[in-house]
């Protein structure tokens, strides 16, 4: 009797377990179906909004139509993506039309709401949009975002501030650039692009002067990318003021070489005998770019430097001097007292010979056979 009761109980437990598993599987399937349905519905809605608004945005580049289709809040979010893409594809007066469209559709208000959204993607979208719209009312919010833990958020906020008012944003940005070592110098240079190369160069140079040596040196090296001489005066002042770190000094010399301003030749020459080898190396490379004929002897002397890289760069600098010819290089090489010094010049002499041969026009096949 007891055994029968026990088998009934086991059967009951078993059937309950099976039903539970089936129910769970069914619920899971239902959940998946529901999620798929929602996703499908969202995609369809996004497609409809995109198909409606893409041609309208194109039309707005020329003129904003008098009547615009109605939009729900969700549609506005899709429109924000499309609007930003369109805005970033064009230049000139057409952008004013797009700003008008944003205000008429209320997307500017949505962007303000999204500025404090939980989702990072939406927050970034809001920052970018408000920057494009040059929305001054969010200036303080964007300035606070410069301190965000997420480097990407802070960089996008910095860019938006520059879009809104470049002159007012730069004093805010300089101390941040000097402090944040998670900002890539390349991104920093790119961030300043809309503000103009000269403003960018000056701001980056000022930030570099205030920054820790490792950040400052990185920023100075990337200043060359702005192709502006406006960054040079703060750096010259920095070198005159006192003793910057070797890293900063080397970076400054690199930049002086890239900018090739004759006013910096004296500074470059002064560092040819610096005790740190990588400072001497940058001075040698820079002198190869801005040096005059009298610098030949200085470069020749550095072929005997104790550090191999300095010798190598000195040889390279000599061979790159604008007036240098293969014959002149050979004469200079013959005049070097040590074999080591000559050895540094030999590869560059060979290279210049090859290049000279390349410049000689090829003999036509028929002439060769003749």
């Amino acid at each position, binding site marked *: 009797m007891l055994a029968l009761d026990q088998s009934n109980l086991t059967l009951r437990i078993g059937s309950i377990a099976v039903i539970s598993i089936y129910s769970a599987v069914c619920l899971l399937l239902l959940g998946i179906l529901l999620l798929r349905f929602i996703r499908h519905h969202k995609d369809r809605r996004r497609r409809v909004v995109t198909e409606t608004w893409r041609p309208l945005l194109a039309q707005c*580049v020329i003129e904003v139509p008098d009547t615009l289709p109605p939009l729900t809040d969700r549609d506005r979010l899709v429109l924000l993506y499309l609007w930003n893409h369109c805005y970033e594809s064009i230049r000139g007066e057409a952008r004013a039309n797009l700003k008008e469209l944003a205000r008429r559709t209320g997307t500017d208000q949505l962007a303000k709401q999204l500025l404090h959204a939980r989702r990072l993607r939406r927050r970034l979208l809001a920052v970018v949009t408000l920057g494009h719209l040059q929305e001054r009312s969010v200036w303080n919010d964007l300035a606070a975002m410069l301190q965000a833990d997420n480097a990407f958020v802070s960089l996008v906020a910095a860019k938006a501030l520059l879009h809104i008012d470049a002159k007012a944003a730069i004093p805010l940005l300089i101390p941040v650039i000097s402090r944040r070592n998670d900002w890539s110098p390349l991104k920093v240079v790119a961030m300043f692009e809309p503000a103009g190369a000269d403003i960018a160069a000056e701001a980056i140079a000022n930030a570099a002067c205030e920054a820790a040596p490792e950040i400052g040196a990185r920023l100075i090296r990337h200043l060359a990318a702005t192709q502006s001489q406006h960054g040079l005066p703060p750096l010259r002042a920095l070198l005159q003021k006192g003793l910057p770190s070797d890293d900063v000094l080397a970076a400054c010399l690199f930049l002086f070489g890239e900018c090739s301003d004759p006013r910096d030749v004296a500074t470059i020459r002064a560092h040819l005998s610096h005790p740190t080898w990588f400072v001497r190396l940058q001075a040698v490379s820079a002198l190869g770019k801005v040096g005059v004929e009298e610098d030949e002897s200085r470069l020749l002397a550095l072929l005997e430097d104790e550090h191999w890289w300095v010798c190598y760069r000195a040889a390279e600098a000599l061979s790159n001097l604008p007036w240098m010819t293969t014959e002149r290089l050979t004469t200079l090489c013959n005049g070097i007292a040590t074999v080591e010094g000559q050895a540094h010049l030999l590869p560059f002499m060979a290279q210049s010979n090859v290049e000279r041969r390349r410049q000689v026009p090829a003999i036509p096949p028929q002439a060769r056979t003749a």
Partner: protein
Amino acid sequence: MDSPAIPKLRVLMVEDEEDTASLLTFLLGRANYQVIHAKDGRQAQELAGTIAPPDIVLLDVMLPFFSGLQVLTYLRALEGWGKVPIIMLTADGSEHDIKRALENGANDYMVKPFNPRELTSRLKRFVDQAA
């Protein structure tokens, strides 16, 4: 009596980004161009082999499958395409691409983001020159 309609000029536009393509199609359509759109380098090459040379080509540098520079070389080698003006669309700062494109037979380039007015006026200048 209606004046006879001005025949539309044909432009082959090679652009992969849908938003940019839509914008260009609108701008070019408005400037009385008939747009033939290729979405990538492969489609551009396939299309070029089947259509008569257009009046002008607008070619993006960054394309899937074949780059704009490869498409440019291909188009220039096709019979009848040697004198078709080709304008490259390039991202800001890619000087190397610009140099290579001009060396490989492109007539001009436009940097993205572009000014819509400048784009249509530049296209018109080349079409007028070719005519």
